[in-house]
């Protein structure tokens, strides 16, 4: 397509197509609606299915059913929709369902500011479901990155058999900017691993807890099972505490032992810096300006931009904090990801949040001022 001027939601939709997404279900919600509209235009001519469900719960139900029948699925919503997705996020985790969930964040709580951007749902994404098992969440800062990370989200969903969230923001989703999507470097497409014909259909089979089981699609040659209840490796309900514990450890381990493969981040370190800014999403663009300004004023500042928010790229964060005395965490919320930074920061490092939750972007000058970089 060459050089284009498009919004983030279009880039997300086209990345989904590029990744082989062939099923989409969604419910209209500002500022994610245009993804539903793009998918309804893009998918059917390719033989895929896109449907507007009766509500967010059905969107998730349709997607989970289709994913287990062999489709690559995506759904898109915003905060109020994620609230309704919650029960089925738990089911998708339980059933090890590969799926991509796009959240074009807007300011909450409740209906909040429907047409305004925010980073409202950072911790909610991690803890939205009963049981508290890990998921994967990626956060793009630009329209181009929305394309790249959506593609990667599909790969990770298939590779780890888990819901992968694309944590967007109205400020990216419905902002237009120049992109050349042909030039985006994408990893090879990850194809779903299928249970070999000579192996029994055990949809949750693993030797080591961190193994990701191969799948058998509903509608394939062999009978397959799926269940919301605690279950054994063959997906039969179990009440055996040993089996239950083993399965839950598997859900945890398959994500947490893969942290370093899932972790995506950008480093802009300065030799001798004692201040580090950790940011993500659209706010990282303000940070880029703030860091340039601070450096041109003679300050030494390092910057770490996280594209993977969950699981926490702890190794990268700890490495970035080496030799640092102060970490600044700017966020378009009341301070959510800062909890992870505070948890990781070695004793003696000062962690300073720069929070803003009034629907407006954090500006470079606010980051400089409130972060004490002036």
């Amino acid at each position, binding site marked *: 397509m060459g050089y284009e001027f498009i919004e983030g939601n279009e880039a997300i939709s086209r990345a989904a197509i590029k990744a082989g997404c062939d099923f989409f279900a969604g419910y209209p919600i500002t500022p994610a609606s245009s993804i539903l509209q793009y998918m309804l235009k893009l998918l059917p001519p390719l033989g895929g299915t896109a449907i507007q469900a009766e509500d967010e719960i059905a969107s998730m139900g349709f997607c989970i059913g*289709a994913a287990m029948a062999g489709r690559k699925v995506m759904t898109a919503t915003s905060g109020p929709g994620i609230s309704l997705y919650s029960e089925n996020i738990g089911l998708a985790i339980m059933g090890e369902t590969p799926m991509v969930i796009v959240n074009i964040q807007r300011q909450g709580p409740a209906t909040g500011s429907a047409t305004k951007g925010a980073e409202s749902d950072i911790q909610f994404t991690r803890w939205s479901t009963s049981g508290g098992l890990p998921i994967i969440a990626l956060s793009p800062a630009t329209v181009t990155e929305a394309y790249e990370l959506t593609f990667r989200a599909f790969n990770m969903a298939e590779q780890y058999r888990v819901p992968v969230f694309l944590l967007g923001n109205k400020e990216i989703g419905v902002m237009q900017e120049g992109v050349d999507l042909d030039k985006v470097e994408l990893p090879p497409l990850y194809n779903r691993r299928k249970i070999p014909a000579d192996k029994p259909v055990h949809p949750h089979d693993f030797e080591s807890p961190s193994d990701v089981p191969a799948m058998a699609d509903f509608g394939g040659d062999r009978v397959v099972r799926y269940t919301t209840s605690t279950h054994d490796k063959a997906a039969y309900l179990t009440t055996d505490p040993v089996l239950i514990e083993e399965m839950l450890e598997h859900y945890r381990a398959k994500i947490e032992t893969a942290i370093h493969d899932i972790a995506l981040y950008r480093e802009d370190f300065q030799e001798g810096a004692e201040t580090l800014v950790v940011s993500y999403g659209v706010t990282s663009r*303000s940070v880029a300006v703030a860091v340039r300004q601070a450096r041109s004023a003679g300050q030494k500042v390092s910057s770490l931009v996280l594209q993977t928010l969950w699981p926490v790229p702890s190794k990268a964060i700890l490495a970035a904090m080496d030799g640092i005395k102060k970490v600044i965490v700017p966020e378009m919320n009341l301070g959510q990801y800062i909890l992870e930074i505070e948890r990781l920061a070695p004793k003696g490092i000062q962690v300073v949040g720069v929070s803003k939750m009034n629907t407006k972007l954090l500006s470079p000058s606010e980051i400089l001022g409130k972060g004490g970089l002036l």
Partner: protein
Amino acid sequence: MSEHSTYMTKAIGPLPFCPGCGHTTIIKALDKALVKLQPDPAKVVIVTDIGCIGLSDRYFTTSAFHGLHGRSITYACGLKLARPELTVVALKGDGGCGIGGTHLLNVARRNIGITLIVANNFNYGMTGGQHSVTTPSDATTSTTPWGNVERPMDLAATAAAAGAAWVNRTTSFDGQLSDIIATAIQQPGFAMLDIWELCMAYYAPRNKLRKSGLTAMLDEYGFELGQIADRPRPEYSERYRAVFQQRRTEERARPAIEVEFGNAVPRQTGIIIAGSAGQKIKSTASLFARAAMASGLHATQKDDYPITVMTGHSVAELIISPERIDYTGIDSPDFFILLSEDGLNRTRKQVEKLPETCVLYAEETIRLPKTRARVRRYPFIAAARKVSKLSLASLALATMIEEKGFFPLDAMSWAISSFQKPKVAETNLKAVAAGSALAQGHQPEHQPERDQS
């Protein structure tokens, strides 16, 4: 393929239901129906809801999907939409029809070809016999200890009213039950079977309900037994393939943007265009952005407009820059174009705070608040009227481009010709010429204006 004599397994023991529970009869009748139809077990999915009936899927040798309470219809639809060739049978109770009521209405309306079997025993057996949407009035349950003050819902008639192609109601005592289930499964579209039965643990003993009492209940409420609806129409996926997948997108392929023009923009520049709905603010701003890109600049655009899109303000925020654009906010606009009172009302606080470095292009009929910006007054509306009022934004942007020389007006004309339909483009090209002429007959820049209000 050898004939299947059953689709159930005894490997995990007998069915778990209480003695006399209708669920046992229903599950065995479903098995018998499958034996009659002889499908490949791998091509059948039994989808179960939460509730006692949800315990039954693991006794089948078919594929099985046990999901969340009230949502079985949605998983069944997802499976069926993904693979229309599958036989998908959802089993749920009356409780599931309450919490998942909207899914029942919508699957009936859409006619997605799943079979829904409701094991309707008028209460929640799994959680201790609480009342459900089908509990008869005055009935005693653990949550209606002094009698139910609600009226029962007619599930079959509700599904029929929502447009279900095939609906039948019977009881678990019906000798034809397996044949009725087989007929339901054979329907190409959505088929629902509402099977009334006895919960031996709670509802039946508490309310002294026996087999004979079921028909008395039907009579009391005037609910019908037997075939409630039988009006086949094309199944959803069939319709979907016929309508959606045959359709090719009619949109013109958008041309790629090549850098063909030069620019004279030395640094990141923020431009705000504030007008009204219907003034083509958004679309014209994006043409300006593409023109900037064709002139070697980076560009971003954000729009602000009310939910009621055909009324009120429409404001576009544009940034153009020779460098990559990081921060996409405009704290201090470099240029501001004001085209209507709606636009001013939305941006008044911003206009009042504009710095002296900002050039404000204002439609001359608008009463401006006090501002430090350098004001350029133009009769944009009067000039646009001579071309088309829909070309106001193109005209005003052309005036600014001509005056400030960001990039050649040819770049704007290129964007208009490349991204707009020929007729619209023709009008806008005239507007560009008119806007350019306005700039050429310009007056000198004003000093900061006094408050006129």
